[in-house]
Each structure stands twice: as C-alpha cells, then as structure tokens.
C-alpha cells in the first residue's frame, strides 16, 4: 500500500525538513520500518535500548488515534500516517 507519513515537527530534523514522506507498507509497523530505514537517525527516538517501540509515541491513521494493538492492522492505499512524541513541558 502507498502510504504518506506526515512528519511532526520534532522528527523533521531527521527527514531533512520534509513534511511528508511517501512509503510502502501493509500496516503502520511496516511503514515505520521503511521510514526509519531511510532516515536511520530517527531510530533513537522511536525505540528504547531494548529495541521496543517507545510507548511515548502516539500514532494516528487518517487523523484518528490508533492503539498499540492496531499497529499491525492493514492500511489502505492513500492512507495518511502521523505520529508524535508525547510531551509534557509547561
């Protein structure tokens, strides 16, 4: 599936400033893997030292938040994937 990943501001430094990156994948995890293979410096923010996807990352498909058990749910052609890091500054 052709999926567009919208890059949030905190990750844009890893994508050379690109706001959107087109990837191919059947689900969120596959799309994320393609993105990180193209921009490997992003990995440190995505995974903990044990290699687990950080729970501080929130994923949205077509603007709707998805839960951790939906990360392998099939995506459709043309879907937009968006993810952000949880922040807590005040």
């Amino acid at each position, binding site marked *: 599936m052709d999926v567009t990943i919208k890059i*949030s501001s905190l990750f844009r430094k890893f994508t050379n400033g690109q706001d959107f990156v087109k990837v191919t994948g059947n689900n969120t995890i596959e799309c994320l893997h393609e993105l990180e293979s193209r921009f490997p410096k992003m990995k440190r923010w995505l995974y903990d030292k044990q290699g687990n996807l950080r729970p501080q990352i929130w994923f949205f498909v077509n603007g*709707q938040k998805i839960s951790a058990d939906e990360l392998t749910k099939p995506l459709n052609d043309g879907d937009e994937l968006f993810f952000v890091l*949880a922040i*807590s500054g*005040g």
Partner: protein
Amino acid sequence: MLSKRELARYERQILIPGWSKSGQEKLKKAKVLVAGAGGLGSAILTYLAVAGVGRIRIIDGDKVELSNLNRQVLHSDKDIGRNKIDSAKEKLEALNPHISVEAIKATIDENNVFDLVADYLIVDAMDNLPARLLLNRVAVKKSLPLFHGAVYGFEGRATTIVPGKTACLRCLYQGVIPGKTPVVGVTPAIIGCIQATEVLKYILGTGELLTDRLLIYDGLSMKFSEVRLKKDPNCCECK
C-alpha cells in the same frame, strides 16, 4: 450581581453574541483551579483573571528562578526567590481587583490532590507527567473537566477532557520524552491562551470544545493541525 465598574470593565466581551451579562455572571461565580504558575500557567491565569473568572485557585510549590523568565511572564527579576504563587497572586490582583485569587503553595501528590482540587474546574498547567496524571485521576473520579496543555520547543498541544464522554489523559499518556524540556515563551503563551479559551467556553456553554480532539501547534511551520482521540477501552483510569 455585577457592579457598574465590572460592567464597564467587561463591556467589550459582553458584546460578543451569546455572552451577555448573564454569561459574565457565570464567569463571576465560576471556580477554576490552575495547577502550575509557570509558562502555561502565566498565560492561562492572566486571561482567566482579566476575563473575570470569579474564584481562581493557584497551586505551585516552586520559587521563581532566573531561568523561568524567558516564558513565565507573571514573574519578573524582582520576584526571583519568591514563591511563584505569591508573585502570581500579586500580578493577578493588580490586573483585576474584582476577582478572588487563592494561592496555595504545594507540590501536588496523591495525598493532597483531591483536597486541592475540591470542586474546581481543573486546568493542567503542570510541567511533569506524574502530577498531570494525578489531576486526571481526580477529574475522572469527580467528573470535573480537565483542560490540558503541553509544550516542547516550538510545539504545543491542547485538548479538553470531559470525564465520561471523552478520552482521559491516561488513555493517551504512557510516558513522555525524558530530560529537560526546551521551550520558548511564545509556545506556552499560545497553548495557555487556547486552554483559557476552552475554560471560558465551557463556563459560558458556548462554542465547540476540544473534546476528543488534540490540537497540535507547530510554531516552526506556523500550522495548527488536529487529530481525533478516542477512549482506550483498557484504560486503567476511566474504563
């Protein structure tokens, strides 16, 4: 009952369709807790005070430091070393003598949070996740609205939580970026103003709230975007 002086003070907002004198009376009777008198809190408190929210309770346990002053505009150089709540109360009472400002020096913990909140509307202007989640717990248990905001650098987020109807903070947060948060003052100013706007709309019963919607402000590209939230059916707080 609003005095002549109050009516004159609030004249321009009373002109807003749907506001009227009765809306202003609602604000005067309202009780709002602002947890945190830092960057977000400075903007929230300022605009709730000048709008005429009648009873404002501020909770903060910190003293003013020099490194706060790039963003915490309720405080200034002469306040360094003072309790933030004292500095904030003084400025707010100068901004609007018609409101009551209660300043409580406290660090929110699980032992005091229920008493501190009482039956006030809750504005989350904290700088740490554990305290935010404690406020969320009280909001859920007491069915009080929680107006959430958070910032990092040039990015900010806001959402409004109405327990029983919307996702709660615990549905969202499983942790945050560790370490010291970089931030420029304009970001909490913008997000704090959005939170204050939500509080005013909630009290007045007007407009559309940011319920089950997360507003994302990206100051670098100067874009606002929005995503939809949903309750986590397995949430340990609100399921």
